[in-house]
């Protein structure tokens, strides 16, 4: 039955023009290298202290300077974008429906090969310590497998087109796990060796998740 439903919508030729709000394309935060912070290129991997560099001379920032959420974001020349495929028809018609649905959206982001099903405001604990980031850095996550609302799911093959959504995460810090002890002992030998381990993990907070409302504008 759901197939029929879907077909009836696809033939829906009525122009679905919900009140569209321009995607803030003005913000030229280049798509960062997958999952590393835009400021990472400016710091070597084993540089430990957080360098508060002066942001490069961008166009004069608007008078209200306190951008509370992004204290140290520098733009780096984004590497070559994958060739822009055209957006398929089914996505073009149903994406406004997906974006307009109330009740929030979820996204399955890929960070270093692990997928996390997150919504806006979730806190993600990565299984590794991300080098070269300090608390407060903003990451642009552009690898997603699925993006959906209550009734619609946009499935990527294998990844969803980056232009269809904006997902940002803030590095909130580095937590470590409680001390673990590995006791190494052989039978009939009294010597026991204790190996202590306490790994560190980076914690992200998904600060922003926006689904692009108007597909045509994205392609322009």
């Amino acid at each position, binding site marked *: 039955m759901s197939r029929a439903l879907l077909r009836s919508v696809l033939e829906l030729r009525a122009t679905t023009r919900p*009140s569209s*709000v321009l995607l803030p394309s003005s913000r030229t935060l280049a798509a960062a290298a997958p999952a590393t912070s835009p400021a990472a290129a400016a710091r070597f991997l084993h540089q430990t202290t957080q360098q508060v560099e002066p942001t490069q001379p961008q166009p004069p920032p608007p008078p*209200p*300077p*306190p*951008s*509370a959420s992004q204290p140290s974001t520098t733009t780096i020349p984004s590497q070559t974008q994958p060739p822009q495929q055209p957006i398929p028809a089914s996505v073009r018609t149903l994406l406004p429906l997906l974006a*307009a649905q*109330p009740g929030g959206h979820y996204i399955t982001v890929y960070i270093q090969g692990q997928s996390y099903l997150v919504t806006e*405001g979730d806190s993600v604990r990565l299984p590794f310590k991300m080098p070269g980031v300090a608390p407060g850095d903003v990451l642009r996550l552009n690898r997603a497998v699925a993006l959906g609302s209550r009734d619609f799911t946009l499935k990527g093959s294998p990844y969803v087109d980056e232009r269809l959504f904006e997902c940002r995460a803030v590095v909130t810090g580095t937590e470590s796990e409680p001390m673990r002890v590995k006791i190494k002992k052989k039978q009939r030998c009294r010597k026991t060796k204790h190996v202590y381990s306490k790994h560190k993990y980076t914690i992200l907070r998904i600060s922003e998740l926006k689904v692009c409302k108007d597909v045509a504008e994205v392609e322009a």
Partner: protein
Amino acid sequence: MKRLRVDRWTGQLLVASSSRPATPGVAAALRSRRCLSTTTTTRHQSAVAAEAVAPIYENAENVAPSDLRFPPLDKTLPANASSLPSPLPERALHSPKLAALHARLTLSPKIPLQTLARALVDASADPNPQFNNSNLAFVGQTLINYHASEWFMMHYPRLPMEVLYAAMKGLGGDPSLNKVAMSWGIEAAAAPGGEVDPGLLQFSLESTGDSILGFGYKRSEVNKLQNSKWRRGVASRVVLDNDFGEIVSRNFGVKHDGEEAEPTEKDITSYGNAVKRAISQKAHANCMRAVVGAVYTHCGRDAVKSFIKAHVLSRTIDLSKLFEFKHPTLELAMLCSREEFEPPVARLLSETGRLSRTPVFVVGIYSGKDKLGEGSGASLEQARWKASMNALKAWYLYSPGEDVRMPSDMLEEDAKPWEPAYIDIGEIISR
């Protein structure tokens, strides 16, 4: 919101010259300020870096040798500092806590440390309005409540007035802003005084400063309302009460929505009772409002809008949990008749365990062919009530969308022409 020429009179808040009263236009005039008995150091508050007033220092000669090895941390402490009710503004420049707080909130360099230090002095610590944060807190509260009420009215135009009050208090009320101030790492000093570190929040637990904060008029029948069962309608709350629909009371004493919090004898002495917690909560909330007022005074309207959006409007509040119904089925029927829908009919969608100890009935409320809401319960009656409650919530929680435009967006330069927003005709008034 009552119209207020906010920008005109915040300028004079800061350069509080003694001639003009600090905040004209507040409903109840502030207590006539008692000019400070001029001790050897005269105090004056100015936005620009305070010019050097040479407070008298202990001369270093008669200091014992052991003190030389560990010199006092705070050299700038003048001898007579403890006689002043709050620390001198110049000391703000030497307080590491204050500089840390300023950097932690990524405040703009246009906001001087003296103003931030002033935001940390509560009216109960220093009654002189030129040195406490009551003026800034008043400006901050006006802005926070304006942006919060605008956000709610644009995103949920059909919210009933009582629920809107509860949502406003949940977002911009004292308990919420107290948590925001705590999350900023603002610490409170044990007792106020001139010798306290300017980076600590100073308020006194005993003498409650009588700073009137907010709009609203003192009702003459306030004690009748509290003692007897007088009814306080929503219309009278809109006109007479403060921004959250609570009774405004003249003597500041701690009021929880009307009932008189009389601390018993035992309460007053033991630390941490409800009265003291409420005083501390109010002080932290006022300090947060004062910081918002300072951001507005120094950085302007757009800066304070993004500050409030980042710190207050980004907090989550579950609106569907704010509703309490009395006759849901009756109210839904009145709603359908008012909107000329077909009368609501409850239908059984699915059920299990009808004869068992724990039955589940899923009931849907239909108006003609359209399904309005659905609820599940252990009995048919409860399921029907729940379904009609969910239908009413679905009506009241209608939202045009997350990115609906707000009137304050029109103040930006390149704002597109305003499209009329959806305004609801009002909630259902039923018996």
